[in-house]
């Protein structure tokens, strides 16, 4: 029989709706199910203050909340900032199903949708069911939030056996987790098995994603086009198709695909930004400008907003010699983004635009400001900030500092050919083509040397020394995937000799960082699997 929770008396609820009569009606419904503690919020601002200070078991949230954040943005922020626990049931109340609500990013989906008008009986049923389901999925979710994907997978397998009625959803979670740690072969096998039984869109889309990680962009394109043919509102299929087309160099098609996705789901700041960048690639400045502006507008109330759209737009405006307007736009970035790297990028790009428009004095001032900011901020490695700053430093005669920054970029990304080409171009633009090639090589050699030290120590079975050496290498090159993976490897060798729970956690963390930088890295996935086997 259907699993459901009927007793609501111990739950704390929050009702979010901009319409007073609707709030009262929803609260009355909750009371009629026995709920006693019910808070209300009339807009995004009130909801933020309540969600950030109290733990709720149930959130009923209207999608349209008037000016400010909408329900989806509120949910994204609540999840992003960990305001709600894995057991909290978030029900979105909407006038209609939207492509985002159904096919959007799973990590930001609510637990259920109710289409207006809300019927008291139906709300009770659905809420009871969602609460029961949450209690099943909470164990997995807790592990996922701790980044313990292996543990989550084990839990998931356990539940697949016990909880027959959630089997289909559990399989979907399992496939997604396998993909997230790069276990593509089992993921593919699982998806193909699911598809043998039934043509399910989610499984086909997930399979297409696996194909991309395995480098089969043509096959992936084909499969995604089939899905879109049948389900023309499948947003995720369009997004993935655009990635594959871009990889295949089909920029114009990729752009059309993203346009279709944006028509279905116009409120994603990142998708709009991607559209802008693709339009620039195709030489269409006008569309790029519109897309960057749209990205800023839809990002206004969203935690998923991106500084790239501001910077992209500033470059376009600056390129039209509207220097002051570009500077004003960049000046707003520090208020919008907290990240110190973004503040540095804003100043650096400002300087570049001044320089481009012949305002050397102002460019010099920007460069001075960036130098100061770099000294002050204990900065994690940020490739974009380093690249933009290096370009400005060259143009304002700070050659040594520029070379240091670019060398740092190379050390962290010695295998990223596209990025290395851009580094070389930056040197060439500065009239340093010959020297630049040497510097790039020197930085790559340095990275290899730093890494090999630990690897060689490990080969000589000097494992404690090897681990210490790899730690130093990671500290020097925190975004170098190869260094991170080798560090994980050396740590695992040490664990095989002598187990140490703390070192194991550290190894998993290092490898997860690598995986987040290079999703689907095979060696990394294998090591993570082995680490799981050590348990």
């Amino acid at each position, binding site marked *: 029989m259907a699993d459901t929770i009927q007793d609501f008396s111990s739950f704390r609820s929050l009702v979010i709706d901009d319409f007073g009569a609707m709030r009262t009606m929803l609260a009355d419904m909750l009371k009629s199910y026995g709920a006693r503690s019910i808070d209300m919020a009339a807009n995004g601002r009130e909801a933020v203050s309540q969600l950030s200070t109290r733990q709720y078991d149930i959130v009923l949230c209207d999608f349209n909340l008037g000016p400010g954040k909408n329900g989806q943005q509120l949910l994204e922020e609540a999840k992003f900032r960990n305001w709600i626990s894995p057991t909290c049931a978030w029900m979105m109340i909407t006038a209609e199903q939207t492509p985002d609500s159904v096919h959007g990013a799973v990590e930001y989906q609510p637990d259920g949708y109710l289409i207006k008008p809300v019927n*008291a009986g139906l709300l*009770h049923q659905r809420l009871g069911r969602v609460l029961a389901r949450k209690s099943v999925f909470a164990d997995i979710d807790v592990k996922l939030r701790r980044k313990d994907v292996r543990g989550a997978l084990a839990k998931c397998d356990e539940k697949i056996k016990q909880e027959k009625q959630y089997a289909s959803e559990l399989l979907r979670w399992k496939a997604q987790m396998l993909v997230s740690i790069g276990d593509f072969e089992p993921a593919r096998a699982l998806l193909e098995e699911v598809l043998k039984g039934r043509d399910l869109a989610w499984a086909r889309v997930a399979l297409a994603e696996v194909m991309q990680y395995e480098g089969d962009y043509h096959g992936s394109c084909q499969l995604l086009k089939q899905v879109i043919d049948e389900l023309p509102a499948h947003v995720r299929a369009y997004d993935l198709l655009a990635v594959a087309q871009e990889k295949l160099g089909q920029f114009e098609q990729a752009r059309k695909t993203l346009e279709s996705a944006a028509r279905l789901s116009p409120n994603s700041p990142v998708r709009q930004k991607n559209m802008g960048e693709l339009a620039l690639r195709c030489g269409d400045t006008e569309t790029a400008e519109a897309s960057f502006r749209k990205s800023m507008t839809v990002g206004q109330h969203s935690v998923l907003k991106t500084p790239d759209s501001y910077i992209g737009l500033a470059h376009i405006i600056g390129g039209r010699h509207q220097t002051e307007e570009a500077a004003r736009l960049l000046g707003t970035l520090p208020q919008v983004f907290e990240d110190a790297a973004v503040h540095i990028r804003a100043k650096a790009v400002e300087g570049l635009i001044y320089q481009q428009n012949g305002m050397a004095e102002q460019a010099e001032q920007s460069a001075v400001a960036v130098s100061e900011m770099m000294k002050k901020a204990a900065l994690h490695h940020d490739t974009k900030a380093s690249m933009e700053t290096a370009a400005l430093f060259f143009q304002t005669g700070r050659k040594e500092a520029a070379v240091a920054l670019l060398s740092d970029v190379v050390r962290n990304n010695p295998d990223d050919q596209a990025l290395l080409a851009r580094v070389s171009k930056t040197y060439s633009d500065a009239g340093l083509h010959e020297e630049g090639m040497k510097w790039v090589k020197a930085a790559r050699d340095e990275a290899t040397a730093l890494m090999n030290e630990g690897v060689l120590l490990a080969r000589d079975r000097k494992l404690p020394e090897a681990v210490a050496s790899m730690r130093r290498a990671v500290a020097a090159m925190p975004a170098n995937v190869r260094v991170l993976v080798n560090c994980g490897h050396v740590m695992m060798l040490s664990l095989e000799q002598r187990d140490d729970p703390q070192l194991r956690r550290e190894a998993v963390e290092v490898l997860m960082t690598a995986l987040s930088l290079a999703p689907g890295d095979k060696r990394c996935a294998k090591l993570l699997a082995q680490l799981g086997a050590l348990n």
Partner: protein
Amino acid sequence: MPIDDQPKVSAFFASSVHDMKNSLGMLSGLLEKVLARHSESDFSDYHDLTAMLYETRRLNSDLMHLLTLYKLDLQRYPFQSQSVQLAEFLDDLQAQNDRLLVARGIELSCRLADASLEWHFDEDLVLGVINHAVNNASNYTQGRILVSVDVVDGMLEIRVEDDGGGYPPFMLTGEAGPSGVDFTRGSTGLGLFFATTVLALHKNKGRSGCLQLENGGHLGGGVFIVKIP
């Protein structure tokens, strides 16, 4: 360039339908609340109130169907086939209709051949189809409606049966299509058109969903049969 930016009458159509749905939602919510506080014996206008709730629901269901068809036409309806527990599906159906049917003296019973049966379909769409059928049956029934669910020949079959006079002969010609316009019965054919459109979207391994109308069945009246592969 963004393509949505030119306002069209059709856009106002959709947003106005939303707005109307909101009002109707409030209205039916309030009516349900009032009905729950009273009974036939203590409230003289009980029957009128029930009729109001029925009409409100009908309006809402029509608007919902129009909006969904509109979005399907624009290729913007996010069709989602997902695993549905039929026991839960029937619970939802009961929960949504109980108050109104009880108030109108109609008994809705559900029969599920296999209590753990699950199937893949778009829950909201199919619930919309069955709700419409139940609503329709409630107009012609003498007092009993039966919804039964089983798997027949590899297809999920949901049957909505009543003990009324059955469908007129011209509606029974094979698979039902959008042709059943009958203004004398207050039917524009929207419900049937919606049902056939929605069911045809359900595809699996080369088979598509469909709708069939019959007379007879367990209760001797109309039988509305939904088949999903």
